[in-house]
């Protein structure tokens, strides 16, 4: 038992687990960091990303075998021949879809922080006050002022590039220099920012790509192959940043291939004692003990562990007296927008592959003037202008070849990320009759978009077209890809924070109301999805804040 006892245990090595590990270790706690998948050694294991397209067997494309083994993962934008090793085999990682839900996962050290979209946007009080104002979900137990110092704390370490805009609905942060808009984006932005007086604005995306060196990381080399892993450490991930920082303290023990079955609970002491794991390689069971436990196994991963941690004290799952664990599942509604052609700037082109686009912050329902009758909350857009090369053209021969070797005209498009309200009936449960190869009951996901999400769609498409047209874009066409939940890979909400233990799972410090030495700081803690993408920076800020609180409480003898 002695060898299996630590000061702290962190379950998961993704974006929030990496932060929990770093902060706990730097505060001097001997910390066991558990990861269900294999180790990924930074740079060394980013195999093939330095290969040129012609060195790859299928020039980056998806094979039929991929479609059979990973029918869900292989549909995602970040999937390609090189990055696919970071996505799970769907056949080996089953779950049930009561309604269609694409669950995108990466089970390895670093988790989805390797393939993430890297967009980083602070939440504002428009987000933190939304639930209280319209009564959906529970009130966030924190406001922007509670989290602002922690955004300030994590951003310089992360290395977020972005511009300062002074928008109340999208607070500025401690940024590296912004990336540059191309000439068409600059022109469209100028026109949009001049035309609209309701607060809408087109700005450059805020991204965890390093426009300057951050410690020994970066700078970004503008290959735009981020989701393959970056040999230049040009963007933030657990493997490049937080886990090395944790390891440097000498306080971290990292244990890959460790599938956490349950958090063990001592009814007498009224606290969690540790975790029981299955070794994914040997299938042996081990128990590890600690004073503080951080669950950072991803929204649905953490939820599965809670629901599987049943005891006399918690027959419905650890700390689930509220009955809210697994409920209020949100993603974001996305894939609707508009695009068109831009005439002009024929004498301009771009150099380098910028790993971000433009961003249009929320402009609906941000104050009284912008209040909508048809729906609550709002949406944001990402997009960009591009001078691409036609992939196909009529004819054959010399003319075709010449046509395809020159860049085409400029085009520009924007696509929406929209809020998904927290509905109690959107939920995940364990199906105890079906188990995976490790004997763990599989998750059953029952989640959908409802009327409010659908009611927004028309305005999203029309507003996108309106803005592009005002920006000078021609032949604008709108679209709705009608994507199902999960596709946006922003699942949140299944162990939410809140003011009281009757309606929420965590308190304002991400501490379980009912189990004081267990903290949850991944997406499951969220009370609302918000309509701004890039929730990860909020998980990071919440994690650093929660660790600070946990260690203070520990020193006071309260944990």
């Amino acid at each position, binding site marked *: 038992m002695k060898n299996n006892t630590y000061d702290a245990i962190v379950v998961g090595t993704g974006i929030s687990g990496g932060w929990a590990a770093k902060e706990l270790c730097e505060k001097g706690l001997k910390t066991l960091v558990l990861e269900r998948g294999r180790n990924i050694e930074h740079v060394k294991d980013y195999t093939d990303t*330095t290969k*040129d*397209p*012609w060195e790859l*067997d*299928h*020039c*980056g*494309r*998806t*094979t*039929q*075998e991929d479609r059979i083994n990973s029918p869900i993962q292989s549909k995602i934008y970040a999937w390609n021949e090189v990055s696919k090793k970071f996505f799970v085999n769907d056949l080996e990682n089953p779950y049930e879809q009561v309604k269609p839900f694409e669950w995108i996962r990466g089970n390895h050290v670093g988790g989805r922080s390797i393939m993430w979209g890297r967009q980083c946007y602070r939440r504002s009080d428009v987000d933190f006050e939304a639930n209280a104002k319209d009564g959906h979900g529970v009130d966030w137990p924190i406001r922007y002022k509670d989290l602002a110092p922690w955004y300030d704390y994590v951003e310089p370490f992360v290395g977020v590039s972005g511009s300062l805009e002074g928008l109340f609905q999208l607070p500025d942060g401690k940024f590296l220099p912004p*990336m*540059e*808009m*191309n*000439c068409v*984006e*600059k022109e469209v932005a100028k026109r949009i920012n001049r035309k609209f007086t309701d607060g809408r604005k087109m700005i450059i995306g805020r991204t965890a790509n390093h426009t300057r060196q951050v410690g020994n990381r970066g700078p970004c*080399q*503008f*290959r735009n192959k981020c989701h393959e892993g970056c040999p230049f450490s040009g963007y933030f991930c657990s493997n490049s940043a937080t886990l090395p920082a944790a390891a440097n303290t000498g306080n971290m023990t990292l244990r890959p291939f460790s599938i956490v079955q349950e958090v063990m609970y001592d009814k007498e002491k009224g606290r969690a004692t540790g975790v029981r794991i299955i070794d994914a390689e040997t299938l042996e069971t081990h128990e590890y003990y600690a004073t503080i436990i951080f669950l950072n196994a991803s929204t649905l991963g953490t939820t599965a562990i809670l629901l599987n941690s049943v005891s006399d004290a918690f027959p419905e799952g650890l700390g689930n007296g509220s009955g809210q664990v697994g409920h209020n599942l949100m993603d974001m509604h996305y894939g609707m927008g508009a695009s068109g052609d831009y005439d002009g700037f*024929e*004498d*301009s*082109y*771009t*150099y*380098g*592959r*910028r790993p971000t686009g433009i961003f249009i912050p929320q402009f609906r329902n941000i104050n009284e003037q912008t209040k909508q009758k048809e729906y609550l909350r709002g949406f944001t857009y990402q997009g960009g202008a591009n001078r691409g*090369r036609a*992939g*196909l053209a*009529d*004819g*054959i*021969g*010399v003319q*075709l*070849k*010449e046509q*395809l*070797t*020159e*860049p085409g005209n400029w085009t520009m498009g924007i696509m929406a990320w929209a809020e998904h309200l927290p509905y109690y009936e959107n939920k995940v449960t364990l199906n105890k009759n079906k188990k995976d190869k490790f004997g763990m009951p599989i998750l059953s996901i029952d989640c959908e978009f409802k009327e409010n999400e659908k009611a927004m769609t028309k305005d999203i498409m029309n507003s996108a077209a309106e803005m592009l047209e005002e920006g000078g874009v021609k032949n604008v066409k709108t679209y709705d890809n009608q994507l199902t939940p999960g596709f946006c890979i922003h699942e949140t909400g299944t162990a939410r924070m809140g003011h009281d233990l009757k309606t929420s799972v965590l308190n304002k410090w991400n501490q379980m109301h009912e189990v004081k030495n267990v903290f949850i700081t991944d997406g499951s803690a969220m009370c609302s999805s918000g309509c701004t993408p890039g929730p990860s920076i909020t998980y990071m800020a919440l994690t650093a804040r929660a660790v600070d609180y946990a260690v203070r409480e520990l020193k006071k003898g309260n944990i």
Partner: protein
Amino acid sequence: MNRKEALSRVGLLLGGALVGSSIFLESGCKSNPKQVNDLFNQDQVNLFNEIAETILPATTTPGAKEAKVGEFMTVMVKDCYTKADQQIFLEGLIQIDEECKNATGNIFFDSNSQERTTFLAQLDTHQKAYMERKKPEQPSHYFRMMKEITLLGFFTSEVGATKALRYVAVPGKYDGCVPYKKGDRAWAT
């Protein structure tokens, strides 16, 4: 050879049995062609290289043949196509000779460069018309597949990306407004 015969021949090829392609049967100029993988033999690779070269010929820059699009095709069709699309593609390699013979009097390999270009330009018009009127669930025209695989293979090949286009593996910076003049080549990635 009618469609039914073509299909049965394709079926045999898919089963891995070596019957010989129509080039072999009709030109009679080769011994048993070497099997490249379980779908394609060397004759088909050679035929596809000629088709691809007609679609994207050598000009001041190399063409599809130098980019070895024929070899690329064998891997992509085998690994990335559905079984149904593989069937259409393999059938297409036979059909293209049939149609070429009807149009020029010769199978594709034996036609001259001018005949090939005229014939494939016509076939391209057909595929385009078919693609525009087909239902989404109907398969693509075989020549559409051939054209797409030629373009993909060529522009992601080393000669295609670095000579016909411009390629920089590690740009090192982003410049959102660089001068461009008509005729400058596009970036490969």
